[in-house]
């Protein structure tokens, strides 16, 4: 085994099982491991209890068990300024943002990375299910995690080459059940801790209620695309494209097909609904994206190329043809077959086999017509 004792690795420890095992494995490999807990959000309730307290206690238990020092750092201000503000702005525009993509780009792999470097770190390590691999030119490439159920490259797709140069993902080649087994065998108290779900700062709380605390909800009409009023909505931001639940329409229209959100018209504050899971208005042929970001240079592809893509987390890949603009900041992405519920604000993430190339943020989805095309969703 190489002597790793002079290599300092700062592990982002959340108090969950994944980052616990990361710290454990690195310590086993002889690294100079330092655990750091990030507090990005203050959710202290009326009783003075906050989830960060419980999570930090778990970090303390695990770190003491492993025998590494641990600390806590506060990024509430950075998170508010760089992630939450963006999150609210996107909702105000009627889009459905992905704060976790932004959190990785701005907090975990920026603010935290910088902090780790101030602690004299050689690397940071994270509990993401993703892998990095260096090629012969020293360029780092990001690969999907081996556990296809857990692969988290979707959320890491906006990272730059610089951001992943000094990053380790020690559990990227391990499957989740094995991670839990390692934790249990090592006697880590987080071995059976439930995975966190949902957006980190909202957690288990009611999403609509949470959002309503920050953005005033404006009720409006719920209409079909043909202008038939079907009811009222309680604020456009509370709906996402393709959503079925919570519309409160039943037993009307043709047949008994359920109703779905097919679009939003911000100018008239109208929610557009249509019938049937496979409603035509939900299927797009191509999309436009901006904020394009690639992890490694993509010179080998030119400006037009065929690869695969995901439009939301945990979706199976779809074959796509990408057409980049000249400075690689925007793209038109055409699907091999129509794709349902493309959602502006989410990331379109590009893959070449197992490699995650990068992503863009979806601005609009379109349906090709015999003559020209038509933008869906009116947003």
């Amino acid at each position: 085994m190489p002597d790793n004792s002079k290599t300092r690795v700062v592990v982002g420890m959340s108090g969950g099982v994944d980052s616990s095992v990361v710290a454990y494995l690195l310590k086993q490999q002889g690294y100079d491991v330092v655990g750091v807990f990030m507090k990005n959000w203050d959710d202290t309730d009326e009783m003075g209890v906050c989830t960060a307290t419980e999570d930090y206690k778990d970090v303390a238990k695990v770190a003491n068990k492993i025998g590494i020092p641990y600390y806590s750092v506060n990024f509430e201000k950075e998170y508010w300024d760089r992630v939450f503000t963006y999150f609210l702005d996107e909702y105000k525009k009627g889009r459905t943002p992905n704060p976790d993509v932004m959190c990785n780009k701005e907090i975990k792999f920026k603010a935290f990375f910088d902090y780790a470097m101030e602690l004299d770190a050689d690397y940071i390590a994270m509990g993401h299910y993703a892998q990095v691999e260096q090629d012969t030119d020293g360029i780092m490439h990001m690969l999907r995690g081996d556990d296809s159920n857990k692969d988290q490259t979707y959320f890491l797709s906006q990272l730059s080459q610089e951001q992943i140069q000094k990053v380790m993902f020690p559990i990227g080649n391990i499957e989740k059940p094995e991670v839990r087994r390692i934790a249990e065998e090592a006697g880590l108290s987080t071995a059976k801790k439930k995975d966190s779900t949902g957006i980190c700062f909202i957690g288990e709380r009611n999403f609509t209620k949470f959002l309503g605390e920050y953005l005033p909800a404006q009720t409006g009409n719920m209409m079909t695309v043909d202008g038939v009023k079907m009811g009222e909505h309680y604020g456009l931001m509370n709906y996402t494209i393709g959503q079925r639940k919570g519309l409160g329409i039943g037993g009307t229209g043709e047949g008994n097909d359920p109703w779905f959100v097919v679009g939003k018209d911000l100018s008239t504050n109208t929610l557009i609904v249509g019938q049937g899971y496979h409603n035509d208005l939900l299927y797009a042929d191509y999309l436009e994206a901006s904020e394009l970001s690639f992890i490694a240079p993509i010179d080998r592809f030119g400006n037009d190329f065929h690869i695969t893509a995901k439009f939301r987390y945990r979706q199976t890949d779809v074959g796509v043809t990408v057409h980049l603009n000249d400075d690689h900041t925007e793209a038109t992405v055409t699907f091999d077959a129509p794709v349902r519920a493309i959602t502006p604000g989410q990331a379109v993430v590009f893959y070449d086999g197992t490699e995650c190339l990068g992503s863009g943020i979806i601005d609009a989805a379109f349906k090709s017509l015999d003559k020209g095309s038509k933008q869906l969703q009116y947003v």
Partner: protein
Amino acid sequence: MSGIYLDNAATTPMAKEVIEVMTNAMQTTFGNASSTHQFGRSARMVLDDSRKVIADSIHAKESEIIFTSGGTESDNMAIMQTAIQRKSLGKHLITSAVEHQAILKSMKYLESIGFEVTYLPVNEDGVIDITDFKNALKDDTILVSIMMGNNETGSHMPIHEIGDILKDHQAWFHTDAVQAYGLLDIDVNVDHIDMLSTSAHKLNGPKFLGFLYKRDTIFSPPFIKGGEQEDKRRAGTENVPAIAGFAKAVSLVSDDEKKARQLKYQGFKKQIIAALEVNKIDFEINGTLSDDNLQHVFNIWIKGVQTEVLQTRLDLAGIAVSGGSACTAGNLEPSHVLIAMYGENSPRVTESIRLSFGKDNTDEEIAVFVTQLVRIVGRLKK
């Protein structure tokens, strides 16, 4: 454990003499001091002897010493029991903005149930203005609680002046002497102190033990209720071995020893300042270098370096200093003491570390600390 410990205001290692006394007491004096058999009597004797040593150390009577679980309990007891007992005489209390949380949180609680509290401001030296105090004092003030020396800056409050003003006033005078006890000569009579809190583990004694001195003429019902220990003023079986250790710790700090320690710590400060100046580190002292201060506390503003980063880097290099108190999620809270002295927008609030020296620290340790500090600050500023 290896490493250099410069956080003695948080707690101190137990003196080996204290450990010996306690070990011996644990083996030989296990009885309950309230029991009426030989085992109880032998514990009672140790308890009485210890109380005598401790009472003498502040020129109090033995009957005026109530053993408690430490500084926090003593502070709570002094404030809460005074309020409960004296509420018919008035609802006004006076304290300072830089007290320990044991005082401040008790005061906040009293405010929530209808008492009125004046929080005296401090100047940049960390001390209150005696004129402010006189102006705040009302006829119906029932308690004044001003700490003797501050745990974050070592600043020394004008205790004698306050006691002098209060000697002809109805208000009782309490002082939190947790940091000062063991470093300053204390005479509760000369300073007209009615109540005084201490903690054993700040002067190389055991943890979870302290006392509240309460002048004999003051009566108040017990805060912790139950048995009749401590003359019915604090229920619960006394931790006799720990109390024996506390008395030993107190006996180790003779008046000469206190002076010697103050001088030794002053020397450390000079050594650090000289080294920082030679290495052109941009710094300022928080508070003052006054001879009157508690010399074991040294609070430094290292300009442009975040407290959290510096404290962590020093820890990783094996040197323990304080960056302030941490919340339950481990984040450092901004210091209410530095805020009171310099305002919440001062960079001192986020760029300062507190060193606190103990009897076992050496010149060599201070030299290592300075070397590491210079190295780390140099790298961070690169």
